[in-house]
């Protein structure tokens, strides 16, 4: 549940904020410290938890800062631009901005953008972008003009998407808005035109954006008080063409249209946004947090002294100018839990808790283990310092493994994993396996070519993994169509969600026979049916000869006639397996998996009709095989049980009945199925009668035990 905590002001010193408020609030290299640039001459470094400034730097009288100071995370230096063209770079030790590094550029800078993990970018007012290093190598280099005349940059943001920096900036020209997306690995600049829809005359007041896997979700707050969302693809389909983007309404009438001081919004996380503005025309300004998924207002806070219409969000803090002072409102969005909803007592957690590892090892007491490790480490450090060896220090094999995963080749990783697994199981075995898989999967995601299949198979076979520990594993396997891995997961994981089971089923049904041949799936659950086909045929024929049993005597004689046309086909169809053994093995894995009907049914509806028919045919075949012997079981080591087969037939028919009924090729199958079920029902009704007689017998037996008030019995003691 999203919640705003108690606000606090950063300093009692009144900032020299102009009518437009502050120039900016930016992160510094330490999580708790932020650079605040006012609209005059000063940059102040604040430590939020202490609520006090750590340092303050000003440019000379007459100069004016035009671009908020940012931190270069790679060098831990601060960068600021004054008088549009003069770049200053300094660090914490510097006192006077006049004496620090200075570079005069040839064009006016709009903003310097810096995020963790990459070099800062400089965005010029004409739309050109340069990396800081390249720019400093030749400060006077020529800066090209990207955007047209009278086009003004309104807003910009810098992301890292799949380790690649992506820059987006929005420009405005005569009430039209354009979005530029610059990819830095490919140097592609894509221009989009934002279509405003019906509200042509509305003005966009504020922007924010968040990044999904494939899209930049650009949210804009319009002057009509509504929030719109525009999805901008990260990888453009056709970069040359000028593309248009349509925005869709996300939230209606969040703030009143005509506010005095302007409004602002910022995305907090995937589902939450913060909006600054007054909800109604007359009322005071508010900071409100909305859940865009459910379109609900989560919380709001009144700001009676008015704001500058600016809002920044870093870490877990919202920054804004409230009245004359910079105010910080911590924002928390805790995962709501049932325990929380039921009012379970929250245990006071001491603030200095260290971060717990993601995988908890239940076999070793947590506290002791940590303590031991720490002392070990410190001792090691001491020793290292003493000896001053440049050799790699001795690290536990698990750590070594993790570092290997991050860097080495697939082959090497495989060897390392095998080495680790061959070791005696250490007490932290579970945690290491969990960390290893997460590490591998993270790398898989980042590097599409990286897919350490054999390692993953080995790790799954340790029996310590489950779906919830590494949901990405099956996702990646699904993308790669790795049926062997999927089968293994289905066999090993106890907690696969129905949607994933269904996705596996889709792949198992759709994958081509030729590609199946190459795979190495476990054939344990499949019995070689082919050799029994012959006997089966014989048996059936003799049966018909002996007692003259003909199912044609049923009421649906007209259906039977149709069937009789191809009696040869029918026997063939029912006695030979409709799928190749490898696919049968995969489908058996599905049959064995656990599921909940309610959650499975909707996903089953998505499977194409011909695949449904194929699966039904296979199930029908299994059912026939089952009913061949008295125990109603299939041969083999771990075959599907009759109940599993029946349940899946019911599920498939339930989910796709209308579709299957309409398909001509499924008709025969359905009729066969119907006839079989009917004959089975008649058998069972006979069994039912027998059961009743037996029950009577048991009742008689019970009556014998229940004696009256008096009896004489024989007792023998041994």
């Amino acid at each position, binding site marked *: 549940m999203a919640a705003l905590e108690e606000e606090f002001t950063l300093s009692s010193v009144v900032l020299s904020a102009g009518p437009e408020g502050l120039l900016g609030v930016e992160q510094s290299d330490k999580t708790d410290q932020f650079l605040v640039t006012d609209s005059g001459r000063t940059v102040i470094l604040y430590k939020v938890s202490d609520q006090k400034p750590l340092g303050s730097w000003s440019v000379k009288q007459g100069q004016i800062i035009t671009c908020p100071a940012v931190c270069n995370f790679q060098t831990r230096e601060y960068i600021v631009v004054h008088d549009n063209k003069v770049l200053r770079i300094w660090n914490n030790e510097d006192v006077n901005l006049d004496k620090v590094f200075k570079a005069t550029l040839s064009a006016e800078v709009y903003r310097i953008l810096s995020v963790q993990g990459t070099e800062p970018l400089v965005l010029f007012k004409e739309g050109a972008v340069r990396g800081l290093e390249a720019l400093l190598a030749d400060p006077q280099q020529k800066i090209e003009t990207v955007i047209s005349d009278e086009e003004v940059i309104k807003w910009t943001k810098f992301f890292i998407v799949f380790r690649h920096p992506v820059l987006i900036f929005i420009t405005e020209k005569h009430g039209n808005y354009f979005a530029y997306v610059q990819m830095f690995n490919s140097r592609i600049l894509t221009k989009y035109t934002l279509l405003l829809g019906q509200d042509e005359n509305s003005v966009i007041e504020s922007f924010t954006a968040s990044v999904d896997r494939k899209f930049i979700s650009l949210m804009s707050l319009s002057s009509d008080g509504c929030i719109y969302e525009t999805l901008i693809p990260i990888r453009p389909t056709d970069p040359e063409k000028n593309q248009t983007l349509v925005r869709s309404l996300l939230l209606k009438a969040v703030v009143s249209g005509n506010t005095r001081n302007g409004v602002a919004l910022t995305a907090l996380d995937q589902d939450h946004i913060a909006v600054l503005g007054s909800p109604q025309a007359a009322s005071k300004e508010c900071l409100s947090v909305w859940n865009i998924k459910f379109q609900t207002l989560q919380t709001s806070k009144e700001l009676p002294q008015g704001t500058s219409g600016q809002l920044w969000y870093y870490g877990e803090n919202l920054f804004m100018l409230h009245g004359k002072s910079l105010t910080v409102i911590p924002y928390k969005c805790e995962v709501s839990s049932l325990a929380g909803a039921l009012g379970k007592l929250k245990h006071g957690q001491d603030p200095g808790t260290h971060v717990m590892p993601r995988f908890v090892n239940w076999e070793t007491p947590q506290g002791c283990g940590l303590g031991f490790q720490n002392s070990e480490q410190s001792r090691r450090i001491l020793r290292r310092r003493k000896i001053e060896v440049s050799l790699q220090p001795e690290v536990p094999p698990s750590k070594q493994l993790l570092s290997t995963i991050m860097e080495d080749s697939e082959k090497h990783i495989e060897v390392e994993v095998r080495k680790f697994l061959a070791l005696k199981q250490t007490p932290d075995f579970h945690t290491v396996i969990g960390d290893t898989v997460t590490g591998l999967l993270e790398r898989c995601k980042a590097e599409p070519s990286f897919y350490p299949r054999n390692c993953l198979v080995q790790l799954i076979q340790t029996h310590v993994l489950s779906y919830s520990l590494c949901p990405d594993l099956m996702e990646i396997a699904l993308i790669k169509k790795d049926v062997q891995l999927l089968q293994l997961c289905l066999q090993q994981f106890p907690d696969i969600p129905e949607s994933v089971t269904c996705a596996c089923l889709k792949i198992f049904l759709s994958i081509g026979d030729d590609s199946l041949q190459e795979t190495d799936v476990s054939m344990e659950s499949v019995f070689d049916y082919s050799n029994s086909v012959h006997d089966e045929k014989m048996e059936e024929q003799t049966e018909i000869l002996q007692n003259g049993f003909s199912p044609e005597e049923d009421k649906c004689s007209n259906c039977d006639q149709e069937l009789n046309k191809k009696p040869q086909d029918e026997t063939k169809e029912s006695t030979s397996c409709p799928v190749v053994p490898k696919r049968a093995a995969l489908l058996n894995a599905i049959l064995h998996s656990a599921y909940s009907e309610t959650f499975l049914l909707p996903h089953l509806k998505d499977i194409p009709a011909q695949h449904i028919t194929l699966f039904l045919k296979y199930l029908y075949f299994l059912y026939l095989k089952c009913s061949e012997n008295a125990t109603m079981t299939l041969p083999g080591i771990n075959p599907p049980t009759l109940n599993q087969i029946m349940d899946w037939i019911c599920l498939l028919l339930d989910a796709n009945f209308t579709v299957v009924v309409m398909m001509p090729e499924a008709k025969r199958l359905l009729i066969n199925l119907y006839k079989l079920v009917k004959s089975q029902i008649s058998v069972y009704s006979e069994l039912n009668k027998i059961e009743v007689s037996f029950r009577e017998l048991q009742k008689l037996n019970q009556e014998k035990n229940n004696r009256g008030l008096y009896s004489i019995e*024989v007792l023998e003691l*041994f």
Partner: protein
Amino acid sequence: MGEFKVHRVRFFNYVPSGIRCVAYNNQSNRLAVSRTDGTVEVYNLSANYFQEKFFPGHESRATEALCWAEGQRLFSAGLNGEIMEYDLQALNIKYAVDVFGGPIWSMAVSPSGSQLLVGCEDGSVKLFQITPDKIQFERNFDRQKSRILSLSWHPSGTHIAAGSIDYISVFDVKSGSAIHKMIVDRQHMGVSKRKCIVWGVAFLSDGTVISVDSAGKVQFWDSATGTLVKSHLIANADVQSIAVAEQEDSFVVGTAEGTVFHFQLVPVTSNSSEKQWVRTKPFQHHTHDVRTVAHSPTALISGGTDTHLVIRPLMEKVEVKNYDAALRKITFPHRRLISCSKKRQLLLFQFAHHLELWRLGSTVATGKNGDTLPLSKNADHLLHLKTKGPENIICSCISPCGSWIAYSTVSRFFLYRLNYEHDNISLKRVSKMPPFLRCALQILFSEDSTKLFVASNQGALHIVQLSGGSFKHLHAFQPQSGTVEAMCLLAVSSDGNWLAASGTSAGVHVYNVKQLKLHCTVPAYNFPVTAMAIAPNTNNLVIAHSDQQVFEYSIPDKQYTDWSRTVQKQGFHHLWLQRDTPITHISFHPKRPMHILLHDAYMFCIIDKSLPLPNDKTLLYNPFPPTNESDVVRRRTAHAFKISKIYKPLLFMDLLDERTLVAVERPLDDIIAQLPPPIKKKKFGT
């Protein structure tokens, strides 16, 4: 081992009466239980929950309150308007004092144990001073409008809380005036009931008064301000009883739905000093109203209309997880209600106010183990003998020859002579009982039916010679000087020479009947005797104690037999010691001197002294016959205890002749069928 024809008797239509009050005594770890027919029983919780003493009931005496005072003194008060004190040594009522306030509904003893407070029908609360040999009326408190149904003292003894109809009063003990009147809400599940009866109150030392009422509420009141602090609605029916632990950190309430709820004082959050009462555990061990509850330091005790006494140990208070940590449900009395005439195959059943005489049937058929044989003659109900007067029967006995029946109430002793002429039976009462034969605690006939042994409540044992239709008092063994302890168990040897008598706590005395003198006293043992018998020929006295130990004592040698010493050296099988009902009857096989037959409520056992004793590793109870095991295996696994658990609950089992046993069972379902219907509860799906 032996094949028997067993007369399996289920027509003993015995229904125990419901439990009305329980009172726990922390000093002696004893529990007093009163039943709706006025019977009061004392259980020794230290001696394996054995029912040590009992006081017979009385029709006009419905006990409504029971309490221990001044340590070991037991008082009761009832609807006849009297306070009674029980003599726990002589097992009779010491005195009864009329309080002149109409029926008494409640009684509470002061924390010091020296004062007794009773609440009466007329709304008066009366204070009595307990003097060493009596009680003395001291004064009345302010009279209330309606009957006082519950009373509780503040632990300091300065205030009391009294529950009445629709309100609770708080009295100042010094002045005797009511300082607060707290009105209880009549609303019951949104419906206004006619009256709200405060069934129980408890005064805690912090001034909190806890009340339970007929609207199903448990309420907490502040006695200083007279305000309601908290209310728990816990039942759809009446909450009828409450008991608080001595430490005041937990209490227990019982409802008319048969549920017992445990409330505990627990911290609001972990490591916070602020505590609140929380309903922690519900227990459903009863089917009917839980009329009374008690809270011992380690267990919750409850009893009610369904006649079970339930002792539920609190697992967090039990230090050792031994057999005491198990739930106990006591339903049947730990004494014998049935006697049997072996010669005529008669059974005499003792009820509260009448006796029944039955003749067993017969069969000519034979069969193998487990067979039910066809009856050639069914069992006959020969006699239904009603007592005169309101008093319950204490004990009864039929002579082995079947021609004498004797029974006793508190004030009279009755002896009847039976004459059998073909199928007719005639009964003649022997009149003119001597004055010393007034109240018998135990009656026994000698094997040849010529002598009658009577244990009187004065501690004396009388020997009476029976001949023809008359009797002659032979001798009285007077108790040893200084003791007045009543004897409640008797055993006589088959040759009639030895008489063994056991009291409630002291050892077993053996008298020589020929020489009319005390022969010896069996060494004292910590646990009370539950059954004893003298073996024929050898005259070995076999004694069963409540801790499930069995001793064999040779009367002629005045010492324990070798077998008994061996048993004690090796110890009994742990499963034997873990049985939770006492052995109530011991008998012997006339032709097999090595066999001892004994039974408790759930098993019947023949101990073959010639076989090795089982150790803890061997299987004690093996219900399956040896099928195709080789003789070697059988011999190796055979041990002295031959147990049968076919008959249960077993109230009586005896050997009629060499090949015939009689077993009297009383199935619990038959008892439940005779109880009033319980409160109907809606169950899902019905």
